[in-house]
């Protein structure tokens, strides 16, 4: 499903945009500030309103293959149980589980990514603490839920930005700046949970969870590239994905150990990595043409030498 979705997306944007690229010459520094101010607000909202079940509806109807969540959503939910216990009869079990996990996020800073946090979340919804028994005792589902929620929020943000660009309200950013802002936005969502995030990462790396966590990661990276548009880089699709995944993962790890105010060091690291990636692409193309020249030179030299040999032999 993921591969097909990715292929469709690639085909789609190649057809629509073609190879001609509109490159934004400069982005005023004010715009960069505005973008990150908006992003910060979103992550604040995430902190303030853990019960985001109504707003979930906006995130969900997203284009192709948005993160195969570990809980099958089933038919697109057209209603959400809003009014307490009775409504549980009308929403599906998966929807209730979603609500519990969302409510549980509030307790993660205190209890970590554990069944205890889920139990506390269930309590706030008026359910018994035993409801946490519906989930695995190591908290995997909670973490995966959080990751897919963050990815959904990121897609939403990028979508809105794209709309603004299309309406002419904003200028299109150059690739490196776009990538930087997207990754920063996504990583800022971790800030409220940053202390317990190492624990979450280790759980995501359990063999049992690797398929889900990997697919969530790759679909997020794909999303970012999709919205970044088809800029003239000489990367092919796989390299692009691998490069951005590398940038994201390394920046995430740096962020875990960063103690600078507002994670300045992390953003600077990110900027450098993205810049490296950009130069690497230029160098790669240079290397390629240089390589070709070198090979041609060698071939020419070989031919000359062999001709000389034969002519000497003949003489």
């Amino acid at each position: 499903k993921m591969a097909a979705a990715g292929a469709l997306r690639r085909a789609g944007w190649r057809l629509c945009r073609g190879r001609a690229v509109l490159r934004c010459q400069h982005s005023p520094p004010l715009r960069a500030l505005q973008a990150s101010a908006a992003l910060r607000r979103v992550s604040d909202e995430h902190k303030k309103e853990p019960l985001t079940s109504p707003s979930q509806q906006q995130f969900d109807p997203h284009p192709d293959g948005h993160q195969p969540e570990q809980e099958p959503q089933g038919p697109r939910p057209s209603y959400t149980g809003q009014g307490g216990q009775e409504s549980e009869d009308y929403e599906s079990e998966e929807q209730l589980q979603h609500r519990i996990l969302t409510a549980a996020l509030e307790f993660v800073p205190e209890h970590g990514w554990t069944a205890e946090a889920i139990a506390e979340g269930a309590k706030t919804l008026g359910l018994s603490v035993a409801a946490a028994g519906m989930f695995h005792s190591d908290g995997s589902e909670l973490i995966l839920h959080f990751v897919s929620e963050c990815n959904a929020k990121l897609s939403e943000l990028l979508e809105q930005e794209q709309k603004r660009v299309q309406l002419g309200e904003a200028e299109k950013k150059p690739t490196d700046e776009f990538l930087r802002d997207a990754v920063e936005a996504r990583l800022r969502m971790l800030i409220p949970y940053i202390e317990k995030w190492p624990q979450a990462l280790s759980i995501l790396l359990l063999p049992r969870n690797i398929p889900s966590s990997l697919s969530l990661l790759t679909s997020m990276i794909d999303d970012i590239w999709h919205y970044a548009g088809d800029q003239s880089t000489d990367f092919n699709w796989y390299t692009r994905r691998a490069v951005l995944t590398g940038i994201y993962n390394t920046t995430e790890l740096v962020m875990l150990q960063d103690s600078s105010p507002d994670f300045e060091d992390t953003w600077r690291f990110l900027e450098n990595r993205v810049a490296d990636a950009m130069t690497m692409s230029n160098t790669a193309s240079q290397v390629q043409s240089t390589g070709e020249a070198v090979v041609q030179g060698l071939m020419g030299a070989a031919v000359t030498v062999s001709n000389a040999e034969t002519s000497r032999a003949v003489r």
Partner: protein
Amino acid sequence: MAAACRLWRRPGRALLAGPGAAPRALRGLAQGPELHFGFQTVTEEERREKIYQVFESVAKKYDVMNDSMTLGIHRIWKDILIHKMNPSPGTLLLDVAGGTGDIAFRFINYVRSVRERQLQRKLKHHQNLSWQEIFESYQKDKCNSLGDSQVVVCDINREMLKVGKQKAQHLGYSEGKSCVVPCLSWVLGNAEELPFDDDKFDVYTIAFGIRNVTRIDLALQEAYRVLKPGGRFLCLEFSHVSNPVLSRLYDLYSFQVIPVLGEVIAGDWKSYQYLVESIRRFPPQEELKEMIEDAGFFKVDYENLNFGIVAIHSGFKL
């Protein structure tokens, strides 16, 4: 309907009785006045009476017999049940047919250790507190070693409860010492008609007891009633072995060895014959799952232990 049901009764006894015909008789829904007691046919009142007598006579040797029959493995099954429950401090447990208190004691131990770990973590966080404050927090938490958890052990049989209470005292689980609220209570009650109010408990367990309930559907409905929304139903019970080789060995062991052990250790062949027969009569895993779903539980699932000799069914009141 009743006539049709009566056709399914199997009078007399057959050693390797197939469980196929029996389950329909056990649906508990449109039963005539005739029920099974092991492989005998009896009326409802007679059945209750007989089962009461069985447990009255085995009560004192119940634990010893459990150990010898299952070679001590029943302890592991009960441990697995509690681990599956994974109770957090503050959980209210109702253990039905919990006579001698095995589940209740394990629950208390588990919650105590979870609570200890919680407190340790809290202290680690507060390592910058002064000695005075740390000491005060010890005092505060000493009365709360279980974190407000409580267990109510409910059984229909007075003798079993008596044995349980004695065990509790012997092992030091009595109320009053380190708890502000009594954390362990013993109540006389019938699983088909619990003496508790609605929406009271977090977890309802019935370990090796539901087999002896005359109207299983009523017991399940009662379980649904007394559980809080979000509460969990857990049932540990002997079930059906699907593997044919194992099944033969199991039957051999059950019908040849266990009643003999019963006679030798407890001096009561008949009760243990009943026990083994009642296991064969009990619905298989899938059917019990359907019955639990009928009572209104969601996310009903079962886990086979030892290839189906024992199964844990779990459901949530959502």
